């Protein structure tokens, strides 16, 4: 780290605080609106804080959502998503530290998958899953998004940063490739696993399209789908929406704060802090 003195630290702190304050307004508004009535949200004189705090939105939310079912589904789908994180890490590691035939071509292929809008692929993917008999299964819901170019690419870039010597040392001791990956590479990549972990969690937690399309009944719906169901054909009950959004963001914040610790405990050649 760059050494800085107290004075500079305070200045930076103030700059970040002001900038952060502007940044966080919509988020704060979302959370606080969960405690407002709908008329207050859309009133002519909008305010950040509720005039009168109400918990009715949460009450209605929990009464109307099939909460137990949706929560379990969301948790399962999120957990399965972490298998994908692991697969991404493996692929990223191979692209960073091995030379093999068609490597560049395959990597470009991986990148290419990032470049097509999701709507184009929705129907072919659905037909494929349908043929594989994966409708109405958790596997069908998670498979399309299990691995992704973004994750593979991120891991590759990160592993490229780690010097080959680290792995060579282990290999000289007779370690297998898998051992090197699991015991040397993965522990070294805590910061990026943490970043990927946050992203994986958010993606799983918010999954909407596939739980809806793959399911033939509501028993596979997630919280996101349930939340969308509450939206009417015309107009929206913003208060209810914000209560749902505020509720859904709590686990994300917890995960973020837990994982952030690992972003910061990154490995340091000089022995760290």
């Amino acid at each position: 780290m760059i050494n800085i003195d107290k004075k500079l630290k305070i200045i930076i702190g103030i700059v970040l605080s002001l900038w952060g304050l502007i940044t966080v307004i919509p988020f704060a508004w979302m959370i606080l609106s969960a405690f407002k009535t709908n008329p207050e949200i859309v009133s002519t004189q909008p305010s950040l804080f509720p005039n009168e705090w109400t918990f009715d939105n949460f009450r209605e939310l929990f009464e109307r959502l099939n909460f137990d079912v949706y929560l379990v589904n969301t948790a399962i789908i999120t957990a399965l998503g972490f298998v994908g994180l692991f697969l991404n890490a493996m692929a990223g590691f191979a692209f960073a530290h091995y030379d093999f035939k068609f490597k560049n071509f395959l990597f470009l292929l991986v990148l290419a998958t990032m470049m097509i809008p999701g709507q184009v692929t929705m129907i072919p993917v659905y037909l494929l899953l349908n043929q594989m008999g994966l409708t109405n299964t958790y596997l069908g819901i998670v498979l399309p998004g299990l691995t992704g170019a973004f994750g593979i690419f991120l891991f590759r870039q990160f592993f490229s940063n780690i010097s080959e010597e680290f792995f060579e040392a282990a290999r000289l001791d007779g370690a297998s490739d898998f051992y090197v990956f699991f015991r040397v590479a993965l522990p070294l990549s805590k910061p990026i696993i943490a970043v990927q972990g946050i992203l994986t969690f958010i993606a799983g937690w918010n999954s909407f399209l596939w739980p809806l399309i793959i399911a033939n009944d509501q028993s596979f719906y997630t919280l996101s789908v349930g939340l969308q169901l509450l939206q009417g054909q015309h107009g929206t009950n913003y208060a209810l929406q914000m209560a749902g959004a505020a509720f859904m963001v709590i686990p994300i914040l917890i995960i973020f704060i837990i994982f952030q610790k690992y972003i910061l405990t990154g490995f340091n050649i000089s022995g760290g802090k």
Partner: protein
Amino acid sequence: MKSKKAPYFFIAPAIILLLMFSIFPILIALVISFTDMSLAGLADFSRINFLGIENYQNILQDKVFLQSITNTLFYVIFGVPLVILFSLTIAILINMGQSKYFSFMRVVFYSPSITNIVAVAIVWAFLFNPSESIGLINQVLGTVGIGPIGWLTSTEFSKISLIILAVWRGIGINMLIFSAALQNIPRTMYEAAELDGATRLEQIWYITIPQLKFSTFFVTITTIIGWLQFFEEPFVMTEGGPLNSTTSVALFIYRNGFQNNQFGYAAAGSLLLFIVIILATMLQLRLQRRAD
């Protein structure tokens, strides 16, 4: 010894999944782009007609499509550098602090990424409101005698407004990636530099930035790809208006293809966008290789 087979084991699961759920659908889309696939064709394949390159010819003459290309280029040219600059700056500033409070700021700057899109739309519609009595930004500008500006309602400002919004949303994730990469820079490098009498700015310029080369490359590529597919902001804020001034290529594809079930036409648009993105990415890969 490195095993020859190992890399294939490592990449196989990911590659197979991507082949099935991304590459294969892209190939299907390629086939569809030469047909007049519609809802009826989806139900009954005998109603699909082969059109050759007609979809491509038509879309390249579609005024709205051409305008959406110009709009998208505008988004990319101004949006991408801003996102990278801001997220890098914030990541470095936070990293300098090294305290609980500064760590907390990371959550703050990440918050736009996890704010519900409905909330985003409501709050920003309020901020951007054209009326001086309602719109907060215009209120502030009014006190210094500027405006009121039709942020989302005038064709001159609508794109800029969406860029402001998208930059605000895009900083979080890239800041996080830079933050992770910053942990990898050996402390000894700074210590040595400091002994040599380097100022803090010099340390940032000569150590931090070069050391972040890989991450910057990653962020640049993914951000460009993301902005070429710019969709959600115009979708929720302006629906492409006024007068198509904010319609992006992705929004055009969505609107003309998927709302109207012209899958063939939409697929042709997607494939063109796909090619552009591939070319942009390959160019960057080449530039990076040259820089190495």
